[in-house]
Every structure is written in structure tokens, then in C-alpha cells.
């Protein structure tokens, strides 16, 4: 089977999301579709799946023109989709989720659970998915849930499977497992469309790479003949600095001193297990670790969002262990939160309102009860300029900006004031290459001005690129505290996987 998109154009008010895009994918190959956020990848995928209709252009299957007016048509034609955000019912079993909508039924519409289980087991075995049909979705880790999604499309006889940013939610181990499954699917004669902005993964798994830039196909690349830097250039349209440029750190006195910090969940589960470390002024300490090993909770405890059960947090000699978020903020600590949509911004608020989200209640933005909006707007205009936030106006709702520009709003807000400590959690997650470059430069600039910086990232590359010192967290504990120039990706990777533990010094 061959799926071809020819001359696809899709316009939204004020923007051409897809501009004469051509794309072909055959069964038995992996096509990676790369592009920055906003390049039109998702739009194209939604057209392929019948969720949107192209304004111009035509879809062909095996040379025959077809029209998808709804996802049902696309499924019928053998196209399956694995969304970035899973479409599963948490309280249903694996088998129930798989057959949902096409349930095998017995007399009087009774669902034939036994048959569903058999089918699921069969497909699971065939593709090495190792799924238990009776397991409840909510009890499964994310990586396994993704396999359920894959099984769902296989159950519906998909020949061509589209994956939308499939690795974004996976741990390094799960990514390896996922790539194995992709190989199996390819071997068994399925066609794969792999949408991503992670170039390394595209280079590794794809047979061909299609590059989208501002809605246009700017090239087809052969992974064997192109390297990451060249691919990034194609994607962004200009030379890109993938490495972070920085001088050797000149650390000063200890800014943040954490001793024996212990955090437990409301249910009593240990999340951060007696952690001790410090951050000195003028250095970047990176915390590496697979998602869910206590980094989130550590940052929450440091910033006052979660109360610590035990231990102490000291900032320049004063105890801030049980401080509120406001008190931590007022102690000149900046916090770039890990999920900008959830907590970093109020999407419905304007850019200027978001620029003062943490500073609105102090001079010069307000006195007493009264907000000074003129001052707020003036400051916001300056910051938008200074931090290169691409927005139509400062009155634009922040939620309508692209991910990179949303993040720049947060970076501008958090970095423009006098700081002693910067805590940056996943500072570039879901951000385009150009903005990553910029945000990294800002973090290094903060360090060079004498601020202590703590960077938490699940992207090992990011930690290794930024950090002067690398701390590895595993199961709530710090398992390694290493100088960046005396360690390597592979060593840190071993610590992250829990395969190695540092001897106490």
C-alpha cells in the first residue's frame, strides 16, 4: 500500500499551515516527519487522518484519489494514528480499550470479553508487545499504555501507522523498547510515519526524513547521508548552534544548601529521600534523571510548593525550608516551572499580565491594592523586545503563542529581576530549536552574572550541555554528584538507570 499526499494546502485565519505539501509513504518503511513547532506537522497529520480537510490538494491510496471526511474513513482505508496524548479509558482493561467501538458481541449485544482477550493476546504475541489483556490502563506505566494504543490501531488492521511525537512521554529505556517495536512493525510490512522534532531519533529510526518548515516541504533527507547539524539547519532555515557556548564556570560561595531533604506524598510514599547537595553562585548544577525519580517533587519542595517532611533548605545562610512560594520568590529565587501550560502561565491572560504574574503585588506594578497597568504594559513591552518574544501585541492571550514564545515569556519574567538563584525545570521541553538556543544562552548569562543555577531536565543532552556539575537522581535519591568535565554521557546514563552507584566520598 502506498499513501500519497499531493499538493496539500491548508489555511487557517491569518496563517497557511500547509503550503503545497507533498508526501509519500509506503508499507515497509519508516518516514520521519520533522519540523519545528508551528511548522505544520500536526495539521498535515490531521488531514491524513480525516480530522481536517485540505483546502487544496488530494490524497491518493495506491494511486487512487480518496477523500477522508472523518477519521472513520481513514481507519477504513488502513491508516492508524497513535496520538501524543493517549485516548484510553483509565478504568477499562487493555482488552476493553482495544475493542472499544468495535466490540465483538454475543447474543443480545453482550460483549464477548473472552474473544476480546484472545484477540488482544494474539496480536500482542505477534508483534512482541507483551500486553496483559486483563490489566487496568490506570495501573500501567506510560510506555505500556502507548503499546495499547499501537495494539488498538493494529486491531483495526492499519497498514500505515502515524505516530505523533511518540517519544515525548517516554523514558530512555522505554524509547529503546519503542524503537524495537517500530522495527517489528516495519518488518511485518507496515508503513510508519514518525512525527518528531527530535532529530537524533529521526536519524536513527527513519528510512527517509521529510522536513517541514513554515508549512512547506523543504526537503527529503536520507538519514545515511545527513548529520544532525545539517538536518537542524534544514529545519530552522539558518545555521544552528546545537552546543551551548560557555566559558569555564567560576563558582563563588554556596548559594543553595540542601541537607537531608525528605519529601513524602500525602499517602506516605517517599518521593525525595534524604537528599543533600549545594549550588554555588556562578555555577550551573544540572539534575539528570529519568522522569518520575523525585526531581519534580524536589523542585516543588525548594520553591515552597510542597512542604518537606524533614531536612533543611538554606539560601545564602537563611533557612527557607518551610517558606511559601511567595517567600521563596521574594528571596530572589526565580523558578521556571516544568509545565508552562499548567502552571507557568495563565493562558487566557495577556502577555503583559503574564509578565507580572509573580511580581504584580510589588512596586512598581502596584501600590497597596492598586494595580498600575501603565507601568505593567511599559515593562512588558520592554521585556518582549529584550527577550525576543514573537507576539502580535502585548495584549495577545499568552495561550495562543507558540511553545517557544510562551517559554520566553516565562524566562523574561523570571530572569529580568535581581536574582540569587535560578531553578529551571525542563526549560526547553517542547520548544523549537531556535528558542532552545536562546533560552540556553540566557541561562548561561544568568550564571555568568553570578547567579546560582539549578537546571532539572530529563533530556540528558540538555543537562550535559548546560551543567558545570551533574547530579543524578534515582528513586528519590542522589546517586551521583559529578564534575561535568570528569564524566561522560554513558557514565551518567548508567547512574540514571540505577545500574551504578557512587561511592560516598
Amino acid at each position, binding site marked *: 500500500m502506498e499513501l500519497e499526499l499531493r499538493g496539500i494546502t491548508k489555511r487557517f485565519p491569518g496563517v497557511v499551515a500547509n503550503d503545497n505539501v507533498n508526501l509519500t509513504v509506503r508499507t515497509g518503511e519508516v518516514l520521519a516527519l520533522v519540523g519545528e513547532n508551528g*511548522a505544520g506537522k500536526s495539521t498535515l497529520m490531521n488531514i491524513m487522518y480525516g480530522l481536517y480537510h485540505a483546502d487544496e490538494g488530494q490524497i491518493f491510496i495506491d494511486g487512487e484519489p480518496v477523500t477522508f471526511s472523518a477519521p472513520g474513513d481513514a481507519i477504513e482505508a488502513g491508516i492508524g494514528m497513535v496520538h501524543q496524548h493517549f485516548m484510553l479509558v483509565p478504568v477499562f482493561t487493555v482488552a476493553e480499550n482495544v475493542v472499544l467501538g468495535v466490540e465483538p458481541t454475543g447474543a443480545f449485544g453482550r460483549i464477548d470479553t473472552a474473544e476480546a482477550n484472545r484477540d488482544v493476546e494474539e496480536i500482542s504475541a505477534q508483534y512482541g508487545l507483551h500486553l496483559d489483556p486483563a490489566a487496568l490502563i490506570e495501573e500501567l506505566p506510560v510506555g505500556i499504555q502507548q503499546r495499547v494504543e499501537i495494539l488498538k490501531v493494529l486491531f483495526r488492521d492499519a497498514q500505515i501507522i502515524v505516530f505523533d511525537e511518540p517519544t515525548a512521554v517516554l523514558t530512555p529505556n522505554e524509547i529503546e523498547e519503542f524503537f524495537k517495536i517500530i522495527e517489528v512493525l516495519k518488518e511485518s510490512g507496515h508503513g510508519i510515519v514518525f512525527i518528531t522534532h527530535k532529530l537524533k531519533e529521526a536519524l536513527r529510526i527513519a528510512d527517509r526524513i521529510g522536513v517541514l518548515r513554515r508549512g512547506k516541504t523543504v526537503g527529503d533527507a536520507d538519514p545515511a547521508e545527513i548529520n544532525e547539524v545539517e538536518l537542524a539547519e534544514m529545519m530552522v532555515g539558518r545555521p544552528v548552534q546545537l552546543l551551548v557556548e560557555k566559558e569555564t564556570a567560576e563558582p563563588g560561595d554556596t548559594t543553595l544548601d540542601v541537607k537531608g531533604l525528605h519529601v513524602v506524598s500525602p499517602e506516605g510514599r517517599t518521593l525525595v529521600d534524604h537528599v543533600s547537595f549545594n549550588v554555588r553562585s556562578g555555577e550551573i548544577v544540572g539534575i539528570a534523571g529519568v522522569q518520575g525519580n523525585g526531581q519534580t517533587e524536589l523542585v516543588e519542595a525548594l520553591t515552597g510548593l510542597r512542604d518537606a517532611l524533614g531536612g533543611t533548605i538554606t539560601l545564602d545562610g537563611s533557612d527557607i525550608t518551610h517558606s511559601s512560594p511567595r517567600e521563596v520568590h521574594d528571596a530572589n529565587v526565580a523558578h521556571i516551572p516544568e509545565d508552562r501550560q499548567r502552571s507557568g502561565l495563565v493562558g487566557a491572560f495577556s502577555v503583559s499580565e503574564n509578565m507580572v504574574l*509573580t511580581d504584580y503585588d510589588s512596586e512598581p506594578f502596584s501600590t497597596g491594592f492598586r494595580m498600575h497597568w501603565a507601568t505593567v504594559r511599559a515593562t512588558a513591552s520592554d521585556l518582549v523586545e529584550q527577550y525576543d518574544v514573537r507576539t502580535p501585541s502585548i495584549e495577545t492571550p499568552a495561550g495562543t503563542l507558540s511553545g517557544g514564545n510562551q517559554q520566553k515569556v516565562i524566562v523574561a519574567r523570571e530572569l529580568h529581576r535581581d536574582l540569587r538563584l535560578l531553578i529551571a525545570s525542563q526549560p526547553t521541553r517542547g520548544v523549537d530549536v531556535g528558542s532552545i538556543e536562546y533560552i540556553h544562552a540566557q541561562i548561561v548569562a544568568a550564571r555568568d552574572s553570578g547567579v546560582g543555577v539549578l537546571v532539572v531536565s530529563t533530556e540528558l543532552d540538555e543537562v550535559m550541555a548546560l551543567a558545570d556539575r551533574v547530579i543524578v537522581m534515582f528513586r528519590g535519591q542522589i546517586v551521583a554528584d559529578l564534575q561535568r568535565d570528569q564524566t561522560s554521557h554513558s557514565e551518567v546514563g548508567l547512574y540514571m538507570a540505577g545500574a551504578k552507584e557512587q561511592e560516598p566520598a
Partner: protein
Amino acid sequence: MTDVATPQTPDTTEGSESNGGPLDFLKRVWDRIDTTNALVLPALALASALIIGIFVIALSDIDRIQDGDWGGIVTTIIDAYRALFEGAFFSLKGFNETLVATTPLLLAGLAVAITFRAGMFNIGGTGQMLMGGLFSVWVGFTMSGPGILQVPLAVLAGMVGGMLWGIIPGFLKARAGVHEVISTIMLNFIASSFVLWVLKTNAFRREGRQDPISKLVDDEGRLPRLFGFLGRPELRAHTGFLIAICAAIFFWWLLERTTLGFEIRAQGANPHAARYAGMKPGFLIIVTFAMAGGFAGLAGATEVIGTQGRATQTFAGGIGFDAIAVALLGRSTPVGTVLAALLFGALQSGGQKMQVETGVPVDLVLILRALIVLFIAAPQLMKFVWRVKAEGATAGPSFGGWGE
């Protein structure tokens, strides 16, 4: 879908000069109508409701339908709507009654709107009104002038009574996680029973009456009449309307000009971001409910010392619930709430005249109200029926679900 998160620029493809003509002009005006404008959707909902109302009026005239008297039916419809609008605006008496009905609707509407803006519900307007009215009427019949002192005190007492009652669900939610929908509904029942009991005590019960009705507030203790200078006793609109307008202005000032308003809006739009930014959710919940109770308490006060002059167990009627529709229709903005309350008040006042003059039952007004709220809740339907440019229904308040 984040790939198309590109800022919406105003559509510039419109307005191409073509062969003039009034129809073409209208078409261009129509194309420019953008549902992001907060006034458009309510206006369309009102128009839709009035159109459906035509059929309801026709059906109410079932005899003529059976006789096949179509001309008579058309006359009934025209007469009914004419009476409705005349009774609402185009006569002094009607306008006066519109203000009477609007006053508590607006105040109670604000009580709901402020909680919507903070991401919460307030089903407890009725209870808060009852408690406010109870406090207010006590001051009203206990003091004996002078009015210039007594009336403001009674108003203030009403506000305090409402606030005290409003704080309870706020406190329960902030400290114990009790969902405010549950607690406010329950507090309505409690307030209602409490008022019944209080009205039967010797301190409140009117001499010589066995039924639960409070002592009368004498004329000096009543809110001054708005049209008192005309010397027409049937014009009972009172200065409570001015209090309500002041409350709406306060609501605007609070939301748009103060740090507390900024916090309330942030809490409503994204509670996680509010917490991250160092705002105190528990404090905001309690303060919001205290102010909501204050607004509703004022509604109760204006009813007892303005319109009615005494308290009964049912003086709040269904206003606390109508207020939810008012806040929804007004999208919880200050101006929107004022306009929505005026509309509901006008329908109520006009409906009386319509029933008297044309025999079309006043219940038509209830149907119109219900239809308006229904259509407001279905923006996609409105857009489809009226063929206006589609834009995601984003302007409304956002709510946390159950168990948040």
C-alpha cells in the same frame, strides 16, 4: 494541534469593494460580526429566543388556531411583544417596575459572577440573600430613625449578614475541600429554615399575626424612592438600584484595577499558575465567597427595606437561581451582568403588562429566559443557525470540575 497555535490576526480578506447595494453592505456587516465580541452571542441568543417565543405565543392562543384565524394570531403576537417592550421600557410605570426587578437580580448576579471569575460556583445566592435580608430587616424595624443613619446601617447589616453566610462555604472549601455546589445548596435549606424559625420568635414576629412575617419597616427606614419627587405612590423603584449599580462598578474596579482582582482572575483561569505565582488559594476562596455573600446580602437588604418593607420566609423567591442565569448571560463581566440583569428585569416587568393587556400568560417570560440561557450555553448552535464566523467559545469563565 499545537502546530497551528499561531496568533489570530484580524481577518483582512473581508471588505473588498464590490458593487455596493444595501444587501451587499449588510452582508459585509454580517461578515464582520465576530463571535469573539462578548455582546454578539447574547444578542443572538435573545433574538433566537424571541423568534421561538412567537410560536409559543401562537400556541397559547389555541382557540384561534383551531378556528384557523391566522390574522388574529399575528395580531396577538404583535400585541404581546409590543406590550412586553412597552411594559419594560416605554412607560414610566413599566420602566419603574423594570428597575425594581433588576435591582436584586443584578446584586445576586454579581454574587454568582464573582465566584465564576474565581473558577467556582455559587448556588447559595438564595441563602445569602435570606440572611442578609434578615439582618437588614432587624435593623429596619428596631431602629426608629433618623433615616439618614438608619437606612445605610440597615444596608450595611444586610451586607454583613450575607458575608457571614457566604464565608461558610468558602471556609469549608478552603479548609476541608467541601465542594461549594453541595455546601451552598445545603446552606440554602438551612438559611430558609433558620429564617422561618427567627420569624416566629417574638423579636421578629409582627404583633397580631400567626404566620411567619416580620414587623414592618416604617417609611423612614425604607430606601428612598427613586421617583419620589413625582408624588406617585405606585412608582416603587428605590435607591437600591443605585446601590446595585455601585456594586457593579465596584466589581469592575476590583477585577480590573486591584491586585486582589488580578489574583481572583488568575485563580479562576488557572489555579495551578496562581499557586505557582505565590497566590494563596485558600485565602482567595474565602475572600471571594465573602464578597459573593456581601453582594447577595445587599440583594436581600434592598428587597426587605426597599421593595417589600418586611421579611417573609420566601422574600428571596427564585432570585438566587435566576442570578446564575444572569451571570452566565453576562459572561460574568461587570457590564455584561448589568445588561443581563436589566434584560431579565425588563422581561419580568413587561411580562406583567403583556398578561394584563393581551392575556398571553406571563410564563412566556420564563420560557424566554430559559431559552436565552440554553442558547448561551450552546454557542456552536448559535453560530451554526446564524452563520456567523466560528471562533472557539473561549471567552466564558472556566470551571474546575467536580473533585478539583
